[in-house]
């Protein structure tokens, strides 16, 4: 058998997973579009000279560089946020802010050492250039709503704030601060404790840093953290987010983790990860505030965004295969007449497919083998429930089974 091999690290997605990805993507784009997020389709290529200065080190190391046929040093798009911010800077006047963008597209990164994927399907949203309150809460609320809608209603939002860590490190020597933040970023708590125990750190900062790994749990953690700081000022944005999302009904889905570290040079406030409960130990996505990136393009205001691994989310949200699927046998009808009747039937919100087989039994067998729930004879206008063989008139079936 000939296999159409793909380059290492690439993938074709088909079957139920592709259907689920499409459903999740459509749902996402519709939800965010309805709240004013404009669909955004960035170029797959970015100029290296444009991308490089704005990306944190961790991203730079994973860029896939190439030269375009025009001879320009470029890279495959490793991150859509950068393209979104550049788009805002070059296409919108300040008075047109804030700008809301949502996207669903591939990103490309050099494979991590332990995996071999170089392309991933990502969906995300960005809210750029708003000065006041509300942006963080809006985008997180929409994210949680979308997770509910695709069936991931037990997913957990783990949220922290890099401001807290930055404050704790403010009075620590640069080299020690770098080692501490690096160990948190790499998830190396034994190294973190080792640096703490062997370094000269002011007592006030040490007290906060020693407690940092334990500042995880419900919103009460914020009280503990404020007590350590002697002020609630630095955690006010996070406190507001947690309170608002709790009031919106998501209290049990929010988990505060003040040791959550993302690229400190990139993120500038609340940061978060999404875990789909009871499944993989890795997050399905995350994001945060990145005002600094906006400022690097000469723009003022806040910027917040997130990205979700669409394939991962769709795998977890995968619906049972074959649900409500209908096969419509054209019988002896001419195609145009069969399609007209099929269109009427599917307009009630069903998924179905045509069967052009001339043999009635073969068409029925095909429906059964494809896990269809119903088989419709368009000529006789009858419906057969495949599981039990019960037959009824089409009009009765549409009235009884699919009344809206």
């Amino acid at each position: 058998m000939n296999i159409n091999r793909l380059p290492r690290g690439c993938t074709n997605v088909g079957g139920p997973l592709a259907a689920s990805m499409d459903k999740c993507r459509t749902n996402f784009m519709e939800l965010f579009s309805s709240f004013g997020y404009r669909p955004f389709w960035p170029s797959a290529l970015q100029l290296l000279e444009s991308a490089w200065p704005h990306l944190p080190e961790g991203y730079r190391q994973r860029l896939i560089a190439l030269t375009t046929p025009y001879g320009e040093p470029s890279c495959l798009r490793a991150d859509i946020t950068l393209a979104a911010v550049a788009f805002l800077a070059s296409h919108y006047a300040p008075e047109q802010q804030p700008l809301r963008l949502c996207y669903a597209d591939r990103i490309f990164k050099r494979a991590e050492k332990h995996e071999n994927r170089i392309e991933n399907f990502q969906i995300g949203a960005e809210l750029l250039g708003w000065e006041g309150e509300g942006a963080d809460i809006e985008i997180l609320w929409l994210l949680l709503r979308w997770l509910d809608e695709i069936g991931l209603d037990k997913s957990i939002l783990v949220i922290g704030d890099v401001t807290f860590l930055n404050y704790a490190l403010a009075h620590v020597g640069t080299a020690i601060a770098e080692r501490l933040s690096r160990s948190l970023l790499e998830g190396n708590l034994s190294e973190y404790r080792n640096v703490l125990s062997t370094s000269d750190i002011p007592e006030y900062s040490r007290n906060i840093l020693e407690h940092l790994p334990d500042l995880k749990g419900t919103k009460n953690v914020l009280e503990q953290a404020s007590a350590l700081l002697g002020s609630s000022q630095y955690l006010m944005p996070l406190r507001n987010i947690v309170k608002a999302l709790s009031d919106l009904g998501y209290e049990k889905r929010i988990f505060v983790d003040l040791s959550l570290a993302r690229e400190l040079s990139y993120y500038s406030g609340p940061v978060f990860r999404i875990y789909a409960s009871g499944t993989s130990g890795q997050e399905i996505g995350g994001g945060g505030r990145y005002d600094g990136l906006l400022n690097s393009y000469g723009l003022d205001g806040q910027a917040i965004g997130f990205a979700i691994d669409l394939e991962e989310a769709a795998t977890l949200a995968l619906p049972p295969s074959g649900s409500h699927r209908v096969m419509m046998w054209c019988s002896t009808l001419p195609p145009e007449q069969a399609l007209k009747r099929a269109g009427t039937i599917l307009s009630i919100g069903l998924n179905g497919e045509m069967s052009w087989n001339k043999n009635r039994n073969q068409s029925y067998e095909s429906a059964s083998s494809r896990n269809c729930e119903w088989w419709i004879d368009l000529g006789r206008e009858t419906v057969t429930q495949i599981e039990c063989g019960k037959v009824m008139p089409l009009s009765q079936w549409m009235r009884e089974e699919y009344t809206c």
Partner: protein
Amino acid sequence: MLTLALPTGRVMKEAIDLFENIGLPTKELRNAGRKLVVQENNYRYILAKPSDVPLYVSHGVADLALIGSDVLQESAIDLVELADTGRGKCRIVVAGPERMVPAFAGHPSELMWTKVATKYPRIADDHFSSLGVQVEIIHLHGSIELAPALGMADCILDIVQTGNTLQANKLVILQEVRDVSLRLVASKQSASLKWPQIAALLKKIENLKGVVGNAN
């Protein structure tokens, strides 16, 4: 319920001893026989090949694991390293026949394109890259010490505990690479969402290290 993965082989006994010392139930675990999953009270243990242990954690099958730092670094899987237990100690070294000593004592350029047999290709690459040396890495899965004697490699990069195996194969230590010990790791998800349970175990391990440290 916490699920813990632990490696079969060299460090399994030390891992079980550690669990027992911090108060985890280990009676069934000690008598696991051919069982690969053992459940005792509120703990489930998964017994896995060392190189597979990080994967069990990263895929969320296990919340926690004990694993040698050599395997952890070689896997390069994104996990949270919670503690160095100080157990299962050994070293990763470069070793070779006596004739290689001058090359390793001289300028690093003398090591260019040296053939290095190892079951740790990633660690070997990191090590020699950090010296600014490009070597030829031969990835073997066992009996690494044979490679220089058979002319397949100039030297090896491997773990050493007592040094007896090296001696038996007429190899000497040429370079120390890094210390190895048993580490407690967790997935990022568990390190956040199951922190209260994990923190309790972590505290016991830290206390235990203190006791062992003071005794020494």
